[in-house]
């Protein structure tokens, strides 16, 4: 899967490294900004109040 992704990336090796780094950063950014907050709000119970 990742090998195929590496083959699909255009350009010589150093360009591929830059592109891969950019892709990783984009994925991390999307996770931190949208995916992780959604998971935390939807699935993680962190109650600090007393009540029913």
């Amino acid at each position, binding site marked *: 899967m990742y090998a195929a992704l590496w083959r699909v990336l255009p350009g010589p090796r150093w360009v591929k490294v830059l592109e891969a780094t950019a892709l990783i950063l984009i994925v991390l950014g999307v996770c931190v900004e949208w995916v992780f907050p959604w998971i*935390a709000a939807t699935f993680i119970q962190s*109650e600090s*109040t007393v009540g029913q």
Partner: protein
Amino acid sequence: MGSRFDKPRFSLPRIEWPNRKRRSLPPGVGEPQRRTYTLREAPSRDAAPVVPPPPKGRSYIDWRGIGILVTTREFIDRSLGIAGELLTTAGVFVLLFLGWHVGFNDYIAGLIQDRKSASLAQEWETPTTAPLEFDRAAGTSDGANNQTKTPVTKSPRAADPFATIIIPRFGPHYVRTIAESVDVEKVLNNLASGVGHYSGSNQLGEIGNFALAGHRTTYGAPFGDIDRLRVGDRIYIETKAGWYVYRFRNIEFVYPDETTVLNPLPQTLVAAKDRLLTMTSCHPKLSAAERIIAYSLFESFVPRTAGTPSEITSMVGAD
């Protein structure tokens, strides 16, 4: 006899695509047919390419409709490889999430909450001509503890920030905003506040129980160090009117449904004329199984005109 035209005068660069050789296909498969045909037996353009029979003991996965023609062994190998990569990715994703949830996000949220609270306090510092939002008439004199009248806050609207809590034991920059209600999304998980006031409990300054909730871990963890409080530690609650000073007294562990801790008299040790501060948070850390309750008793009210209490001058940035 060789002529000079036998050798190519230039050569195109070799392009290998894909650059990984697939060794498991027998020679001849996928390569152009090099035999010559007579005109009669030449295969039509639409005819399926000829695939030689697989070597002994091998078989093909033949899904040429979607462009797949591999030996079964290679198909299994590559499927397992992809499955392994997917599982590894999922594992890394879970670790990243945990690191974000209890580490990164918690830390960043804490910094933001500290800063927002400090700027709120700064607003209160600047003198305005607007009338105070506090009902001084409702305040009762508190002769035993303090000569000053203790103002009582009017019930703020839900999710409105109306006070900050300053706890020197929690560190030199610990200032968090208290907002009305314990709504999870609007108050407790919110970067702008973090600490919520139980709307059903008494108002700040009122005789009875002023009850707060805050996270023990994650989302800035306003009450993360609640178990480090020592008896007698001062807890300051700042409003536009001044500072309500409480002294920490004791910790109690209860089950999550124990709402009696919010009562005006949650414990028999409390007298009916006492003003009490109750802080609730979850226990143990990263769990919702129990609640940790910290009780503090009101000591005095310091009006804003009297200046910042000396213990917290460095914390609220008033100079």
